[in-house]
């Protein structure tokens, strides 16, 4: 196959070569000794011009940069309807073992979990919240508790919320047992109310956690 090499022989720029020699004598030497190792089929550049103009003339140039993908007609009009139909068809149903049914149409929730599961959930949440509180009390001395460095209840709750996924349930239970023995927990009416509010607000996360983890 006949090959064509670059016919251009530019006069080397001395400044650029001197710069290269200063940075790397090796690359300077390579630059001096090597040519263009690439070639093309003979006549390629004569064809190139024709090919470019053929693309321009036939309108192919207009396609460059456009989206390459097409969708069926009326696809986006149908899409919303299709999605809603699928959601309805995939409603979570009540299972024999107990689960959560969520009616997405009216956002009503029918919970049919056992009393035992409810107790476990409440206990888990209580553990998460109390961990933050008694951790602060456990490690801080009485003189410090009322100082400016004391961790507020909100801060403890926030800490537990942000990090609860890292707590192992066995560790939490062990800590609660320990806490119950050594520390008198001050469970006020406010705390109970906050627990109930927390349950209400995070019921979805707890559901998901229980569905994926066995307690």
């Amino acid at each position, binding site marked *: 196959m006949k090959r064509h090499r670059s016919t*251009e022989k530019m006069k080397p720029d001395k400044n650029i070569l001197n710069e290269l020699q200063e940075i790397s004598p090796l690359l300077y030497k390579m630059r001096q000794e090597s040519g263009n190792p690439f070639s*093309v089929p003979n006549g390629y550049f004569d064809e190139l*011009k024709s090919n470019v103009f053929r693309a321009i003339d036939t309108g192919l140039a207009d396609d460059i940069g456009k989206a390459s993908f097409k969708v069926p007609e009326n696809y986006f009009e149908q899409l919303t309807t299709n999605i809603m139909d699928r959601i309805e068809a995939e409603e979570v149903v009540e299972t024999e073992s107990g689960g959560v049914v969520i009616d997405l149409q009216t956002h009503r929730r029918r919970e049919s979990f056992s009393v035992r599961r409810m107790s476990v959930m409440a206990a888990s949440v209580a553990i998460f919240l109390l961990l933050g509180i008694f951790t602060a009390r456990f490690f801080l001395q009485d003189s410090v508790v009322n100082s400016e460095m004391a961790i507020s209840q909100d801060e403890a709750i926030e800490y537990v919320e942000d990090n609860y996924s890292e707590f192992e349930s066995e560790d939490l239970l062990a800590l609660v047992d320990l806490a119950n023995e050594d520390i008198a927990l001050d469970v006020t009416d406010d705390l109970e109310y906050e627990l109930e509010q927390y349950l209400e607000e995070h019921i979805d996360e707890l559901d998901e956690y229980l569905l994926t983890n066995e307690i």
Partner: protein
Amino acid sequence: MTEQVLIAALQDEVQRKQAFQTLVENYQERLYWHIRKFVFNHEDANDVVQNTFIKAWKGLKNFRADSKLYTWLYRIATNECITFVNKRKKMRSEDLEGEEAYQHSAHLQADDFFDGNEAERKLYEALETLPEKQRAVFQLRYFEEMKYDDMSEVMGTSVGGLKASYHHAVKKIEKFILET
């Protein structure tokens, strides 16, 4: 035809096509070789250079006469090269799924249209290890002997930044060649 005359013709609807033919004739080889040293393979270079001229044609209406045709064309070509190489890398990494990244330079020796020696092959292998923009800076200076002021228009980077980038690129390539 002087550059000013050519630019004026390119911006005139009647003369545009004829002027563009002249533009292609004047720059096709230079742009092709610049692209070829980026993508290595002739078929790929052919695609990229055609895309470059087609984009130039489409961009003629927006071409500002205050920049040179030369730097404008090299800007389009270099951007096309970077886009092409990035796309090819992404496709290859999806195909290989954790295997070593495919190096096109490793296949140069088997390419019918490459007859460089071992040192040249190593140089192109080293080029593949550079980040694309830094590689472009190196190639524009080393192969095309482009002035920094012109390169600044092509790359959209300050002259100082380009000098630093080129310096580092040369050092990296030198180190690669010496250590492999």
